């Protein structure tokens, strides 16, 4: 059989293609971006006419995927963990409507916050929606679970979640690929009211979801991804979820654990396997990357006679990603230490590229703000968030996509005048437009600086939905055209930029300054690809 060397993210993508997917929908976000990019670069996906354009945000992506499922085809939507918050409304409700064509929601969590604002664990949201969750331990399972996931989804007409983490998403290993399945032909739902969540119908649909819970549990009990391993040493029983299974196995020669072990790759939690483990062993250790999701749950349904260890009792750290050394310590095995990092080594934080347009924006903004007071610049998610660090120290917030405009508005409502928002082009079309409308409707005294580099730069320069449209959008939303200014952020224009910023900061209403210059990374990438 053919073996490919794939990132976990790519294994999900290849599994989806081979599973008969007709469309993938997503907004870029580390560590999930490579799933969609793999499909975009796939020749076979072109031949199969698989949809793979970026969406404006995770909510529109989720809804489009649900629409494709409605029309009978297999669809995937993928996102980083915080993207699922954006898509939470259609996500939760898709569990109530159910699906027609198979629907997989792939969520890439980021424990240790390598590139994120938090390390929330998407398994809680999967459980909240009451749908099956698959959590691969390695690249092969990422492939197999995705390829088979559509079948599970269609069997119960339910969306399913695949949860991966940064480490798996961005790690490569050999993956055996299987034959490609045919895509579904288009078909409409049998029940014309299935997707109409009027209360009377929603109540019925909800009962179907509730009735399915026992089926989901039965599926988990018999799933090949959940497995009981016998072990001689019953002083300890181990539950290892997803990638934690690898960290466990790393600690034993030939990957043979001496303790009884339940490997979990499919949820709801396989209670019978856990009961079996509990009845055999003196105490239980739960290994899972992310929150203590399984640990809390098993504490709830097992009697409390035996000790259950994990992230909650301090056997493992409460936060951050796991690694083989932490797991060894929790097992009481000897560990090595290496050498200490010498004092001469200093931190090297990420920084804006030389020649980046955001630099020119912050140079000008810092000067313009001098006469207006400090701590009043709200910002957003993107490369320009690095403006919070020296040498600029320009911004005072970074919370979620689009929050700069609405937080500036709220602060202005409280009397902080002027309040400033700094937002990128793609973040603006992701979630900034509606906030700008709020500000327009109240003529809030805010200045919105859209630092437009015509790319989703931080995640690798993907195409921005905003390119070429920002000015029209702002005027269309109702910003007075006299207060929509377009600037060229280059060092030569510094004085002009400062002047315009000062004027607009002094204006007692909504103004938008669009500082437009393409990301230097995408400029050089496009040059190279043209060669």
């Amino acid at each position, binding site marked *: 059989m053919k073996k490919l*060397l794939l990132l976990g993210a790519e294994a999900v993508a290849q599994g989806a293609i081979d599973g008969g997917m007709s469309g993938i929908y997503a907004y870029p976000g*580390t*560590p999930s*971006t*490579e799933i969609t990019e793999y499909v975009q670069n796939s020749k076979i996906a072109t031949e199969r006419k698989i949809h793979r354009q970026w969406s404006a945000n995770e909510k529109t992506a989720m809804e489009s995927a649900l629409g494709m499922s409605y029309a009978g085809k297999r669809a995937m939507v993928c996102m980083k963990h915080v993207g699922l918050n954006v898509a939470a409304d259609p996500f939760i409700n898709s569990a109530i409507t159910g699906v027609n064509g198979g629907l997989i929601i792939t969520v890439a969590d980021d424990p240790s916050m*390598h*590139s994120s604002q938090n390390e929330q664990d998407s398994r809680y949201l999967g459980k909240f929606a009451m749908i099956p969750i698959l959590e691969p331990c390695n690249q092969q399972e990422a492939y197999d679970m995705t390829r088979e996931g559509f079948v599970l989804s269609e069997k119960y007409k339910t969306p399913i979640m695949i949860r991966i983490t940064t*480490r*798996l998403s*961005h*790690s*490569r*290993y*050999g993956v055996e690929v299987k034959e490609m399945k045919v895509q579904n032909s288009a078909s409409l739902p049998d029940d014309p009211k299935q997707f109409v969540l009027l209360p009377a119908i929603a109540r019925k649909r909800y009962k179907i979801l509730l009735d399915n819970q026992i089926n989901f549990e039965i599926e988990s009990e018999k799933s090949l991804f959940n497995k009981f391993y016998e072990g001689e040493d019953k002083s300890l029983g181990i539950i290892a979820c997803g*990638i934690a299974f*690898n*960290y*466990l*196995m*790393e600690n034993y020669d*030939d*990957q043979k654990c001496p303790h009884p072990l339940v490997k979990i790759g499919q949820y709801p939690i396989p209670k019978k396997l856990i009961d079996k483990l509990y009845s055999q062993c003196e105490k239980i250790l739960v290994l899972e990357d992310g929150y203590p999701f399984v640990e809390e749950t098993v504490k709830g349904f097992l009697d409390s006679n035996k000790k259950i260890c994990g992230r909650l009792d301090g056997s493992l750290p409460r936060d951050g990603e796991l*690694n*083989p*050394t932490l797991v*060894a310590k929790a097992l009481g095995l000897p*560990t*090595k*230490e*290496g*050498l*200490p*990092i*010498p004092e*001469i*080594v*200093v*931190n*090297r*934080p*990420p*920084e*804006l*590229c030389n020649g980046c347009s955001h630099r020119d924006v912050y140079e000008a903004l810092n000067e313009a703000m001098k006469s207006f007071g400090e701590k009043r610049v709200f910002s957003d998610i993107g*490369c320009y968030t*690095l403006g919070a660090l020296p040498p600029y120290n320009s911004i005072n917030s970074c919370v979620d996509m689009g929050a700069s405009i609405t937080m500036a508005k709220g602060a202005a409502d409280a009397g902080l005048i002027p309040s400033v928002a700094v937002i990128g082009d793609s973040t603006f079309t992701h979630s900034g437009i509606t906030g700008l409308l709020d500000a327009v409707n109240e003529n809030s005294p805010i200045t919105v600086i859209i630092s437009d580099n015509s790319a989703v730069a*931080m*995640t*690798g320069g993907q195409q921005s939905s905003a390119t070429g449209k920002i000015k029209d959008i702002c005027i269309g939303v109702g910003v007075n055209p006299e207060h929509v200014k377009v600037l060229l952020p280059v060092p030569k224009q510094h004085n002009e930029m400062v002047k315009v910023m000062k004027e607009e900061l002094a204006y007692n209403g909504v103004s938008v300054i669009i500082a437009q210059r393409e990301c230097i990374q995408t400029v050089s990438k496009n040059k190279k690809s043209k060669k």
Partner: protein
Amino acid sequence: MKKDIILSGVGGQGILSIAAIIGLAAIEKKLFVKQSEVHGMSQRGGAVQSHLRISDKEIASDLIPYGESDIIISVEPMEALRYLPFLSSHGWIITSTTPFVNIPNYPDLDALLNQINSYKNVIAINADEVARRIKTPKASNVVILGAASPFLEIPLENLEGGIRSLFGRKGEEIINMNITALNAGVEESKKYYQLSGL
């Protein structure tokens, strides 16, 4: 056979190319390869690392346990020291001495090189200078790979094969440039051996 390698440098310096060449070479040798890498925010001029594991048996963890790395391959001297907690007691540091200075408090270079040379198993070469000398200024990362190659237990011809597969689409000129850089790195490594009397 099992080699655990930490690759380190600054975002954009080409450590993922090194990882890819070794990875492809190992696959040519029918070995198992597991490689975890960094994407996203830290790629913007920040410190980056990659865990590369090669073995003749299946590999479990995507991360190398602390204190068990056989080699640190670094394209930047300060970054060579950031991952010492991963290095095993008999492990090697192979690093470039060319600093990448993008922070105001970058340490004094002499002090830094003294620190590097205070460890017992070190090969430190000025990869940028070597790359310039052989007129392949963009391939200093591959010079470092060449310097590390005697410690990899992967024949040079397989590494050359890795270069061919990785740069195949970019044409013969780029391939040859990188192979020249690889061999120059090997020579530097040998010289370093002789000089330090190892």
